[in-house]
């Protein structure tokens, strides 16, 4: 049985690798967890420590991660935890949802904003203009707890083409 004989082990922690080619019926029956974006987190009651099963990861990829982790003096679990945290940080679903909500709201009432609030600071949260003030400091007082917000001094910013690159100068002395 797979749970008693993990194919890979790292510092005593069993790591179960899987691919679509694996015969995983027996293993799947043993999993007591949930799937979240192709990641299975399983609990093993017979063991004191929790094991993590990541579906669909090839052994070649795992070996490469293990080799690169060793070069950096890190454990695979440290690298995986950092990668997962990074992914979560980058792809916060709520932030993405509010980003779209705010931008669609701005685009639908842009004309009104340009005429009504010209020269003022405005904030858009959860798809609506929350305030329009003369300064950014005044605007701060009316802001809520959100994952994404548009802040704009109306009429000031405009899209341009900007060239990146060229020679870089490193500041060396104060």
């Amino acid at each position, binding site marked *: 049985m797979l749970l008693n004989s993990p194919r890979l082990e790292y510092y005593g922690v069993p790591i179960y690798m899987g691919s679509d080619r694996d015969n995983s019926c027996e293993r799947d029956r043993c999993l007591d967890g949930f799937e979240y974006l192709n990641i299975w987190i399983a609990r093993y009651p017979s063991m004191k420590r929790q094991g993590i099963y990541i579906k669909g990861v090839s052994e070649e990829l795992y070996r490469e991660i293990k080799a690169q982790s060793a070069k950096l003096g890190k454990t695979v679990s440290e690298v995986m935890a950092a990668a997962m945290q990074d992914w979560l940080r980058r792809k916060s679903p709520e932030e993405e949802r509010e980003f779209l909500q705010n931008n669609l709201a701005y685009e639908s009432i842009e004309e009104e904003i340009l005429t009504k609030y010209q020269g003022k600071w405005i904030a858009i949260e959860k798809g609506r203009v929350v305030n329009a003030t003369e300064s950014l400091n005044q605007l701060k007082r009316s802001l809520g707890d959100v994952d994404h917000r548009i802040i704009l001094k109306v009429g000031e910013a405009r899209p341009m083409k900007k060239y990146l690159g060229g020679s*870089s100068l490193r*500041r060396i002395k104060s």
Partner: protein
Amino acid sequence: MKISIKNPINGATLTHEGLLDTGHDGLILLSWDAYVELGLRKCELPRKLWSTGVSVTGEEFLLRAAYAEVELGRARRLVLVETYRDNVRRLVGRGFIEPYIAILDGPKKLLRVECESTSSRAQT
């Protein structure tokens, strides 16, 4: 001299060595990680107003932009800082030094930036 970048809403601050890129005609280009770390997605411009960045190889990509307080020496300015997803470069563009006097000392490979209260030097 260091450059401090502060989120004007939540006060989160990040300090780094200024890297002046005279080939970048924008103001400040932050790394994606720094942009996220400072929480600048919570004071961002609408995407319709984002500029387009053009790389040396001609590729074009949208530059997310947000307001931030940038401190250079004792001078503090509220400017638009930009980034694009997964960018790792942090640049101070030519646009940022426009209000200052910048003297390029070719033989010494130094750039002197002078503002009202302070000055700093940069080397190629």
